[in-house]
């Protein structure tokens, strides 16, 4: 089997940073981000022959997006896999295969949402769960609450540990002028927040924003000739465990264990070598579990690790440096933004929040209710 390590690179990124944009629909956000990503690397819409997208409000995303972008008839490969917020890292893996085998040459991965301005609630596609719905869990919050409650039971994790995830995210957001919420936040504020589904309160939940993001991928030899510093994809992995939370094999271990191991193995690196980490923080408990399952701390130690200050600015492991889904943005499905921030850090474009000397970055995304996991390891030209 051919190694795909470093064969494909992220050539361009686009981010609308329009987190509250009434009057724009999801496609407007997506199209602006796609334009910005192509402009970022010096390509144009006419070059795109691979399309990858998922949308909360569209069952036929590829058709809708291809038509609107005006690229329908030039497409040679497309994938609208929908596994929730991690879809875009699944798309990344699909695009890598298509690019590496010559099924396309310029891949566009893109997303847009107007979920904040369209009503402020998480837009979800019809996907009935007849064996859970009769018990009226708050979807998706109660599913994450059941995981947090079990983690507390098995490992003694405290609400303060979860709160420290939210505080670290806010401290990073204060260094990011594009973050949606940058107000001061204290431990008392978080612990006093309105309880929604024990032990998860409003302060443990991600933002509800609008937004659009996009990536342009090419084979690495082509990316070398494009406008921006090379960001090769060194490894990827996926892990699916369930759809309904009641079918999660263990409530304290996610598919990130499998997706992370696969991505790290392909990249040929260990967690200790990673300089920068993005973890999809839909809820504070997500960050704890992913730190454990990706190997940044031992199983059960996530709470103590976070409460030691490790992931906050100045800590030993920079995590969610844009402010994360908790404080930067969360337009329904956030996975693509973990890759965008990783690329900015690897290129040295992150301004006040820039981490010195980032050579290896890990981006991890979650979908459904801890149901689908996907991990990518990105590097600089020096890591090839």
């Amino acid at each position, binding site marked *: 089997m051919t190694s795909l390590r470093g064969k494909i690179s992220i050539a361009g990124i686009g981010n609308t940073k329009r987190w509250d944009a009434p009057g724009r629909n999801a496609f407007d956000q997506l199209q602006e981000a796609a334009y910005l990503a192509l402009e970022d690397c010096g390509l144009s819409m006419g070059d795109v022959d691979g399309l990858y997208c998922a949308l909360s409000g569209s069952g036929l995303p590829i058709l809708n997006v291809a038509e609107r972008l005006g690229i329908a008839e030039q497409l040679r490969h497309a994938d609208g896999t929908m596994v929730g917020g991690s879809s875009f890292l699944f798309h990344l893996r699909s695009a890598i295969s298509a690019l590496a085998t010559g099924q396309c040459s310029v891949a566009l991965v893109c997303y847009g949402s107007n979920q904040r301005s369209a009503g402020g609630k998480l837009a979800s596609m019809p996907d009935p769960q007849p*064996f859970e719905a009769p018990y009226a869990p*708050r979807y998706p919050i109660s599913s994450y609450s059941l995981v947090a409650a079990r983690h507390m039971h098995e490992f003694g994790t405290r609400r303060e540990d979860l709160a420290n995830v939210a505080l670290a995210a806010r401290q990073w957001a204060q260094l990011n002028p594009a973050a949606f919420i940058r107000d001061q936040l204290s431990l008392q504020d978080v612990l006093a927040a309105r309880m929604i589904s024990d032990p998860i309160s409003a302060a443990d939940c991600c933002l509800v924003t609008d937004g659009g993001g996009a990536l342009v991928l090419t084979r690495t030899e082509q990316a070398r000739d494009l406008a921006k510093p090379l960001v090769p994809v060194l490894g990827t992995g996926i892990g699916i465990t369930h759809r309904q939370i009641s079918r999660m094999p263990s409530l304290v271990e996610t598919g990130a264990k499998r997706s992370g191991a696969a991505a790290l193995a392909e990249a040929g690196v260990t967690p200790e070598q990673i300089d920068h980490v993005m973890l999809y923080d839909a809820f504070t408990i997500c960050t704890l579990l992913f730190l454990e399952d990706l190997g940044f701390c031992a199983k059960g130690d996530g709470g103590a690790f976070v409460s030691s200050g490790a992931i906050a600015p100045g800590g030993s492991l920079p995590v969610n440096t844009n402010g994360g889904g908790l404080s930067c943005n969360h337009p329904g499905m956030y996975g693509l933004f973990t890759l965008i921030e990783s690329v900015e850090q690897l290129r040295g474009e992150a301004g006040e929040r820039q981490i010195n000397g980032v050579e290896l970055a890990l981006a991890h995304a979650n979908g459904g209710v801890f149901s689908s996991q996907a991990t990518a390891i990105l590097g600089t030209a020096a890591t090839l």
Partner: protein
Amino acid sequence: MCSSRSQVCDERFDGPGPEAQWQSHLEKGTFLIQNCHHCSHWQFPPVACCQHCGAATPELIPASGKATVYSSTTVRSRKGDYNVAIVELDEGPRMMSRIEDIEVDGVKIGMAVRASIRGNETPIVVFTPEEARP
């Protein structure tokens, strides 16, 4: 039944689907889970094949009803707080349910519970603490 197509359909999958069968038994007062006649694997919710060995049409049989609370949350609602739990059945499978006949703050992980079918129009399987039983 697939009678008009009996020559072309596989008869092992004839009749109502497993979810419909499960629902009609629940409406008659029986809580069923699936057991594979081939590898003895227990599973829930009911589906067309065994998720362990792949055998067709695992059997729907009455659950013992004995279970343990695996995790639990209290949903804070304007209409009142209520419990949502995942219970682990003694046979092995887990399911979402609600623990009743106890204050929401009294539900603890590890607590022994037993199944009960409640609700007239649309019956559902809930669980009650073992010690609260007469």
